[in-house]
């Protein structure tokens, strides 16, 4: 399989000096769906923000063989679509159309192509007809779908999603999982929702306190109860 993301010895410090990531090295291959699991504050979101260059630090992140640097930023952001955890942060425009069109317009698509991308992206997430609605008046599940559409509209080849099922009721959660399963591109999903991980991802990477703890096939990782318990992903052993 072709290697499309490579992270070598990545460390990151917050502005206040606190270390968020320590010597992370990992690889993502074409077409796979990888889970990034770990407790709250493990550094999952911080790692995701490195994948399209919003955060940068020492260590090397390469996407399709190209290093993340200033010259590559626009190209990188069209390749790696990042969906944020809170759709109220992701959806900042007055209408759904404006929001989904934001990426394609910034990518410099001509107008006809922008419209076509918006229509296609909304269709892919099952939200056709919501173009003129205001994000404020949508349910959380609808907002999550629109948030995914904003990234699909850019034709990203890698979809990076932070906590896709946070705050969703079980019905919306499973229909969102079904939606993610249908999308063909390479996916990286950060979550501590193990049901989601089991249903969606072939491979899982465990992260805790900024360090990479384990990596392997999802079924092996999820079967390793002592490992999960040690990193806040299962009830403590004594319970």
């Amino acid at each position, binding site marked *: 399989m072709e290697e499309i993301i490579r992270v070598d010895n990545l460390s990151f410090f917050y502005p206040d000096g606190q270390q968020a990531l320590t010597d992370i090295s990992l690889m993502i291959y074409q077409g796979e769906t990888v889970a990034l699991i770990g407790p709250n504050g493990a550094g999952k979101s911080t790692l995701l*923000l490195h994948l*399209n260059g*919003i955060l940068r630090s020492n260590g090397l992140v390469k996407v399709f063989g190209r290093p993340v640097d200033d010259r590559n930023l*626009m190209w990188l*952001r*069209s390749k790696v*679509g*990042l969906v*944020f955890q*809170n759709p*109220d*942060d*992701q*959806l*900042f*425009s*007055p*209408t759904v159309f*404006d929001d989904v*069109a*934001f*990426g394609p*317009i*910034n*990518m410099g698509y001509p*107008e006809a192509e*922008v*419209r076509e991308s918006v229509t296609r992206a909304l269709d892919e997430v099952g939200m056709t007809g919501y173009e*003129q609605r*205001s*994000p*404020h*008046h949508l349910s959380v599940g609808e907002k999550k779908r629109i948030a995914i559409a*904003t*990234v699909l509209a*850019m034709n990203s080849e890698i979809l990076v999603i932070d906590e896709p099922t946070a705050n969703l009721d079980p019905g919306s959660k499973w229909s969102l999982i079904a939606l993610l399963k249908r999308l063909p591109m390479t996916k990286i999903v950060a979550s501590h929702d193990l049901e989601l991980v089991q249903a969606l991802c072939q491979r899982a990477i465990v992260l805790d306190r900024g360090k990479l703890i384990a990596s392997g096939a999802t079924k092996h990782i999820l079967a390793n109860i002592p490992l999960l318990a040690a990193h806040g992903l299962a009830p403590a052993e004594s319970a």
Partner: protein
Amino acid sequence: MKHSFIDQYSDLDSFIHRLDPRTKFIITLVFILAVIITPPARWQAFALYLLLIAALLILSKLPVFFVLKRSLVIMPFVLMIAIFIPFIQDGEVAGSYNIWLWEVSVTHTGLQVLWNVLIKAWLSILSLIWLTSTTKLPNLLQGLEQLGMPRVMVMILSFMYRYIFVLVDEVMRMRQARNSRYFGGKRLRQLRTVGNMVGTLFIRSYERGERVYAAMLARGFDGHSRTLNRLNFSQADAYFGISFSLVLILTSVVNLWY
């Protein structure tokens, strides 16, 4: 939590709703300008303006009660500023009263100025209600941008439209959290709590701003904002805009020269 739209009733369908936002914006500006430059004594002109704005409101099928209520919400502020004018204006005294130790007198010119301020404010407010209730805010913003409003201002207003209720929700949740742990106490303590809430709200909004900015960067934002132009100026816009403006200009000319 559910809140009403800022641009409530903007999704009705009428001849007025279908007009280009720019036409409506310009009409509103011309209307307000005409109202402002009208001499106070010309009550016929004010009657005409009232008739015009009433016609616009009826054409747009807005509920009368809604419009009146909304216009009255703003009037107290105008009144607060204008109420003292009759007392401080010089001129022929209309009546004087003794309030405890003071002798206050109301003048005719003062009353006229008061009436002038009130009617002009009310007419202007009606026209603004008409504008915002018949135009979706995103369209209005787009219109403003095409009329040359700086892009930064348009972005600030569109973020306002998007996030005002997100913030209101946040405040409501904070109040519920406070009330569920509030067991009475001195007024001073309550003030302190409110102060803390304001601070927290500021920090949360600031952090949200950073996350929103990251979300914009992630989709290729590079400091230049771009939009598609979706508005088109139709023939109806031209006829309506021109004829309405002509009526207003004519009235103003008559008012000022005769």
